């Protein structure tokens, strides 16, 4: 989908740039407080058995904010993520070569739906499925198997910064 994220004036944006000094649009969401987000306990019921939740829910940053902006803010725009991948010298790697610290991106018909950080290489798992550390929307930071999350599994790519 071609839509570009429209930042409304009342939302807080940080000064954020790629390694090539291209501006990265971002926003710290204030839609709901962390206390209100704790009411989302059905997510826990649905996914809780197979995940390790490692933070309280917060709307301040999303998955891309965890991976590319050190948890300071949320990134929502497909084209900015692509810009970061290019400017910051992320190169696509094969799944079997992925190591802890590499990143994984979940695409859905061209949209970047989710991103996370690999914490266990696929080669270390009997089923060759890496363990991923990511943030699920406004929910918590979560440790999960790459294929156990609410995001589309049809196109998953792995990246490493190569400078």
């Amino acid at each position, binding site marked *: 989908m071609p839509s570009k994220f429209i930042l409304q004036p009342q939302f807080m944006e940080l000064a954020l740039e790629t390694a090539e000094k291209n501006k990265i649009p971002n926003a710290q969401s204030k839609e*709901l*407080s962390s206390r*209100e987000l704790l009411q*989302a306990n*059905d997510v826990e019921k649905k996914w809780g058995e197979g995940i390790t939740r490692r933070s309280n829910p917060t709307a301040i940053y999303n998955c891309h904010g965890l991976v590319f902006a050190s948890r300071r803010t949320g990134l929502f725009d497909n084209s900015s993520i692509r810009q970061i991948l290019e400017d910051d010298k992320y190169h696509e790697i094969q799944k079997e070569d992925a190591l802890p610290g590499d990143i994984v991106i979940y695409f859905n018909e061209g949209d970047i739906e989710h991103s996370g950080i690999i914490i266990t290489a696929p080669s270390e798992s009997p089923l060759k499925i890496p363990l991923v550390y990511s943030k*699920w929307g*406004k929910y918590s930071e979560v440790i999960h198997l790459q294929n156990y999350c609410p995001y589309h599994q049809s196109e998953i790519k792995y990246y490493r910064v190569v400078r």
Partner: protein
Amino acid sequence: MIKVDPELSKYFIEIYVVANTPTYLYRRFRSQEIIRDLANRYSEGDLIDYIKKIDSSQNPSISEVANAYAISVALTFKNSEKVKELLQSYQFKKLEWISHIIQIWKDTEIPTTIFDFNVDTAMVNYNIDMSLSKSTNIIKEVRLKNDQS
């Protein structure tokens, strides 16, 4: 006034809370039959009134916010001209992604222009070239003027 069943709200929360982007929210909600049902059950005005009410709340609950997003996607099954008219000049204060959801809808909307063809039945050529059009065009039906069916 729209009343959303609490069980349905729980389901909406499950989708809303894990959405990393407005596009995810739009796609996930739009693929649910229940969202289409909401669109069928309520008018554009009812749906927009609910969204505006939640948007004006000082501290909306998570279920109210999730419902408002689900309802905003239900709006995308309605008459776009009417929705544009009702939302014209409204500035969202609390619900951060509604404008973007409406924008995704506008960007992906398939035009429903009706063309009148005046052709001889014996000379119908189905290779209609629409390559100059910027948007996706789907010809659902070709009706001939002397076709009585």
